[in-house]
């Protein structure tokens, strides 16, 4: 089954006619994703690439195509509104890729997402991909992935590709890769994704890639210690980052001495996670762990 997205995921894209939306939708189609609808207000009735119907509203798109997941490429000032529209239309999984959404917009959006029982991955994330189902919602390069039994979760984009690249070279395929996003408020956190991987019969082990700022990794460590039976390999980016400076991502900042890489490494280690201090060692460490546990 993998997690979040699979063969039966019927994808719609909000912002399909914009620059980023159209480029990535072509890539998603090429990869094999079942992209069933696009939404751009005012362009209803047109077709994307001559095949995918475009609607004015998400509600129409859902009613006509049965779409159950939305990938969002709407620009930052309008992205929060787009998320609300998708959730209200009953879309189960919303994946806003957009970087730069004001965080105060997300306060109210999060309250709505939660009250409707929808699942959100992102914003400011590369998306979700399940290679075995040829299903990709997002901007990651499809060709570096291969089907397999390792789950990947990360707050970063290209560092996730780095981890996936290392796994693929070693012949270790992925069940699902989830880019959680680099913002302070994201819909799916490490704990949520770990819970899904723990319950997934097609995942044997998980690589988690954290970074400085916030306490999502510490929360994950506590959850892993209490509930996780599958091995977890972890790397935290930003051991050399100076305090008080925002390192690219809105959420990557050590504030008031909290959220350092060292604290996160130690907390994860204490929870029995297989920690790697070098970003070059993620794949190798996973192979060692799998061999030691007889999973390879």
């Amino acid at each position: 089954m993998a997690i979040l997205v699979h063969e039966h995921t019927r994808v719609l894209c909000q912002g399909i006619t914009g620059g980023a939306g159209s480029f990535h939708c072509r890539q998603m189609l090429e990869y094999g994703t079942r992209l069933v609808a696009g939404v751009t207000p005012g362009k209803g009735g047109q077709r994307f690439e001559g095949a995918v119907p475009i609607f004015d509203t998400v509600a129409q798109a859902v009613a006509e195509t049965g779409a159950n997941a939305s990938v969002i490429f709407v620009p930052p000032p309008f992205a929060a509104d787009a998320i609300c529209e998708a959730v209200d239309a009953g879309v189960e999984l919303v994946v806003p890729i957009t970087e730069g959404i004001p965080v105060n917009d997300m306060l109210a959006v999060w309250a709505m997402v939660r009250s409707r029982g929808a699942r959100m991955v992102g914003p400011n994330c590369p998306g979700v991909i399940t290679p075995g189902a040829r299903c990709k919602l997002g901007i990651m390069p499809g060709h570096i992935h291969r089907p397999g039994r390792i789950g990947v979760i990360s707050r970063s984009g290209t560092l996730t590709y780095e981890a996936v690249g290392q796994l693929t070279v070693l012949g270790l395929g992925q069940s699902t890769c989830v880019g959680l996003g680099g913002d302070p408020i994201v819909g799916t956190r490490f704990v949520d994704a770990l819970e899904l991987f723990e319950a997934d019969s097609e995942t044997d082990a998980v690589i988690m890639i954290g970074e400085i700022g916030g306490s999502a990794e510490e929360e994950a460590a506590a959850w892993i210690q209490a509930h996780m039976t599958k091995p977890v390999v972890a790397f935290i980016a930003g051991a050399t980052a100076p305090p008080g400076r925002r390192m690219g991502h809105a959420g990557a900042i050590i504030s008031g001495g909290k959220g350092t890489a060292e604290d996160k490494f130690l907390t994860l280690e204490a929870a029995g996670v297989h920690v790697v201090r070098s970003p070059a060692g993620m794949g190798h460490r996973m192979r060692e762990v799998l061999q030691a546990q007889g999973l390879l």
Partner: protein
Amino acid sequence: MKVHEFQAKQLLAQHGVTVLRGRAAATPAEAIEAARHIQGSLWVVKSQVHAGGRGKGRVVGEVPPDVIAQAARGGEGLPGKGGVRIARSTSEVGDHAKALLNKTLVTRQTGPGGVTVKKVYVEEGCEIARELYVAMLLDRSRYQVVVMASTEGGTEIEEVAARTPEKILKAWVDPVTGLGDWQAREMAFRLGLVGKTVFSFVKLLKGLYAAYMAYDASLVEVNPLVVTTAGECVALDAKMTFDDNALFRHKEVSALRDLSEEDAAELEASRWDLNYVKLDGTIGCMVNGAGLAMATMDIIKLEGGEPANFLDVGGGATRENVKAGFEIITRDPNVRGILVNIFGGIMKCDLIAEGVLAAVRDVGLTVPLVVRLEGTNAERGRELIQQSGLPVITASSMEDAARKIVRETTRVAAAAGTERS
């Protein structure tokens, strides 16, 4: 984005927060004029710099170097010599302004280099009965704005959190209803406020929250919030920072940006949509993506080097951006070697290679350069580099790249040392 105290107070006052009368001044004459305008018999002259810890700061040239060094580490207060000074006459206001303006102030937050004081804020004095602390910011684990208050006004909140965490009161704001009067009242009573002061506190707290939301702040901190002998709550100091992602809808806030407080290289980088943070090491790096950029700094350190910067060229970088990034890195005099680490997803490695090669041709290359390309069109990118005939070293993995640049940088440094001797 940060603003100065006097700017934060102007914004807060518009939302009903009580502040004292004051005026900013850039010269001693302006400071004296401000004091006359404010009237009264007691004034406070406050350095306007973005760094905190001003009261315990020291002015370079006014005290011996060892006292300056102590101030950078967070020394004790020394009345009359800090970045915030009390005056009992207008001429004393002028003296203080003269002692502070265009001087270098060193505080625990500025580091040993200090910052130049370009403006002072002259404010009326007040009779203080109690000093409290209040702040608002995003609670990243609850996804709600948290209001924090403490009886320990004047002390840094990190210090209170470390020593007496039970003294920090917290209330979380439901985004649907906003901050309730009941929440503010409850906090007031728990702080031990009585009578009309309770309602003055509620008004101030609601004003802070209104301003927080209205301007898309990411932090509002009032330390100290004072209760005057007349029982009124006043924001004696104010700090506001803003969500950069929301500045597009707040022209009035963007207009308050003080470019002189920002690093010139970081400013130039932001014009090219590059995310650059200057560090103290010798190996410059250029990477696509924030996480990979941090990881690249980390691996340089693990291999025995020190990163000179964080530089994320972003997902949609062009040949021109890459070239600009390269120029910013090479302008840093500490840089002894450069590592380019690209995992091309959307970004095509051959375009990156072209940008780097163009920069090398234009700017010249005086230090070793290692390039690691992986992902989309990586093969083509590596070919371009090899065919260029330029002395660019290619690497096959992140580890290989870090190892090579550290080795090359060390070798060049050793060679330079031999030449000198």
